[in-house]
């Protein structure tokens, strides 16, 4: 018999308790994997909007917490073009629309210039991109087209106005794939924001530091914030919120998981005080008792990680049943999220197993044998 067999036999000998502990750990770990996966997917998706197009700077109204609430004059574009080292500038109006018949709320609606830099890098799956002169024309992201069950040439009512689907595109960003694009002027008109945009994107010369160009923009135009795209993503309020939620979930899951495991291991020690006394009587050293109990805790932790990974995979499939989620949540859970789950399982094993193991190892053989 190997030591692992001993550990396994001890756990299998109390199947109900082992199963419930593993399940409890699994729930906590799956919540962490899911939230981290969603949070990191959110960040990745937002970052892809800019990185896929080589955008270096985002210009928004100074002091606004997110781009949707920013409001700038579209005419500002001429001033931006004159800033040294700026290669290309594109305006963007961003808003959210709903398609209640498809149970979709807060779909990202982008108003972009036909033929502009924002449209140029999209991968067309079907139809064509917006061109100058297009009116009442809309491009749908792949996920949105799927959710709305629309294809090229279909008619679509957006905020009460009829549009014709002229193309379906795929983007590296799930937000864009879950949204739609219409000509900038059309969205300005529909939203009553003629001559206004929510922001600009800028491509700079490759050799210059975006921070320096950003500073030059802010010096030239008052009331704007010109933020390097990497910083913009990092400081985005939604991303900060999702990170905070993931962090809070990890904290709560760690607390509940370690209390659960501590309770299980403490019960295991109490129930088996006589057995531990016997092992000590047979000459087992304190260290070996600790290794045995920590081995049991680690096995529970590893099983919890496996169950948690499976539950998070199933959970993600469940989340993806909602059309709204499909437009915002990346279903691919990154391997790093599973690594965090694994680290949490190990952490819980150490936290929950160590105290009962040390306590058990300190029992004198006769004291423990008398317990029975």
């Amino acid at each position, binding site marked *: 018999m190997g030591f692992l067999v001993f550990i396994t036999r001890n756990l299998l000998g109390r199947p109900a308790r082992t199963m419930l502990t593993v399940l409890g750990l699994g729930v906590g770990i799956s919540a962490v994997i899911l939230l981290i996966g969603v949070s990191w997917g959110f960040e990745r998706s937002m970052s892809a909007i800019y990185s896929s197009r080589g955008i270096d700077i985002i210009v928004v109204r100074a002091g606004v917490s997110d781009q949707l609430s920013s409001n700038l004059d579209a005419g500002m574009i001429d001033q931006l073009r004159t800033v040294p080292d700026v290669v290309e500038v594109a305006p963007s109006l961003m808003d959210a629309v709903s398609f209640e018949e498809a149970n979709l709320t807060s779909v990202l609606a982008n108003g972009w210039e036909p033929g502009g830099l924002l449209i140029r890098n999209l991968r067309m799956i079907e139809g064509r991109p917006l061109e100058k002169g297009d009116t009442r024309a809309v491009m749908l992201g792949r996920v949105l087209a799927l959710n709305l069950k629309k294809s090229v040439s279909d008619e679509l009512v957006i905020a009460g106005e009829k549009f014709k689907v002229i193309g379906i595109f795929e983007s590296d960003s799930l937000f864009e794939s879950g949204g739609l694009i219409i000509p900038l002027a059309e969205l300005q008109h529909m939203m009553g924001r003629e001559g206004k945009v929510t922001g600009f994107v800028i491509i700079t010369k490759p050799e210059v530091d975006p921070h320096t160009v950003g500073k030059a923009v802010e010096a030239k135009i008052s009331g704007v914030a010109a933020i390097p795209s990497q910083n913009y993503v990092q400081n985005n309020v939604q991303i900060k919120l999702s990170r905070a939620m993931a962090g809070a979930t990890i904290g709560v899951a760690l607390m509940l998981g370690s209390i659960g495991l501590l309770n299980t291991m403490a019960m295991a020690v109490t129930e088996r005080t006589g057995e531990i006394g016997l092992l*000590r009587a*047979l000459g087992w*050293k304190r260290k070996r008792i600790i290794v045995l109990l920590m081995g049991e805790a680690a096995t529970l932790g590893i099983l919890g990680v496996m169950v948690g990974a499976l539950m998070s995979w199933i959970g993600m499939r469940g989340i993806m049943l909602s059309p709204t989620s499909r437009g915002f949540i990346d279903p691919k859970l990154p391997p790093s999220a599973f690594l965090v789950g694994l680290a949490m399982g190990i952490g819980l094993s150490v936290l929950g197993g160590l105290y009962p193991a040390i306590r058990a190892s300190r029992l004198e053989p006769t004291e423990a044998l008398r317990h029975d």
Partner: protein
Amino acid sequence: MTDPGTSTPTLLRGESLVKTYPDGDVRALRGVTLEISEGEFVAITGPSGCGKSTLLHLMGGLDRPTSGEIAFRGESLNRLDVDRFRAQHLGFVFQSFYLIPTLTASQNVQVPMFEASWPRTERNHRAMRILEEVGLAHRANHLPKRLSVGERQRVAIARALANEPILLLADEPTGNLDSTTQREVLDLLARIRTERRLTMMIVTHSGEVAAAADREIRLKDGLIVQ
């Protein structure tokens, strides 16, 4: 060190052993001195609560005396690694067997072997050989709950022999057995003692066990009376 009455060397010596339990201020032993020679079979007898099991536990290093000293082959237990001493030189048999319910008979026998660092395959072979010795090879893969009471005690005896001890300490090994099974266990203990040249110290209420011993030490109120 040699027993003054014989030429047999002393294996274990307890000197002025006192044991007081803090809970209730009970004085279980009140100054016991005894010597066990190598190869000797000693029965510790006396009424319930007279300190028999306490004495056995102290002599086996399971507990420490409040005062007094125990020496193994002349070396004080205070200077020895007591865990190692138990693992290498002692075998314990308890009245209520203390088999681990989730392990088979063979696995139970292997439990002490972890401290002797036998390789895994050797542990399996040794356990089978010892179970054969106690007549239970055919029950090697059974869990304790599938064994009779007598078989359980024989597994416990096999476990006590796992690391080739020189001293077997048994606390009422026949206390939970019917008379037939008691006889079988006694015969088994007598046989393994002869075959392995074991020193045995047995706490018992049984006159039959005491009669089979080389020497009987009788305790009363924490003192040796005979």
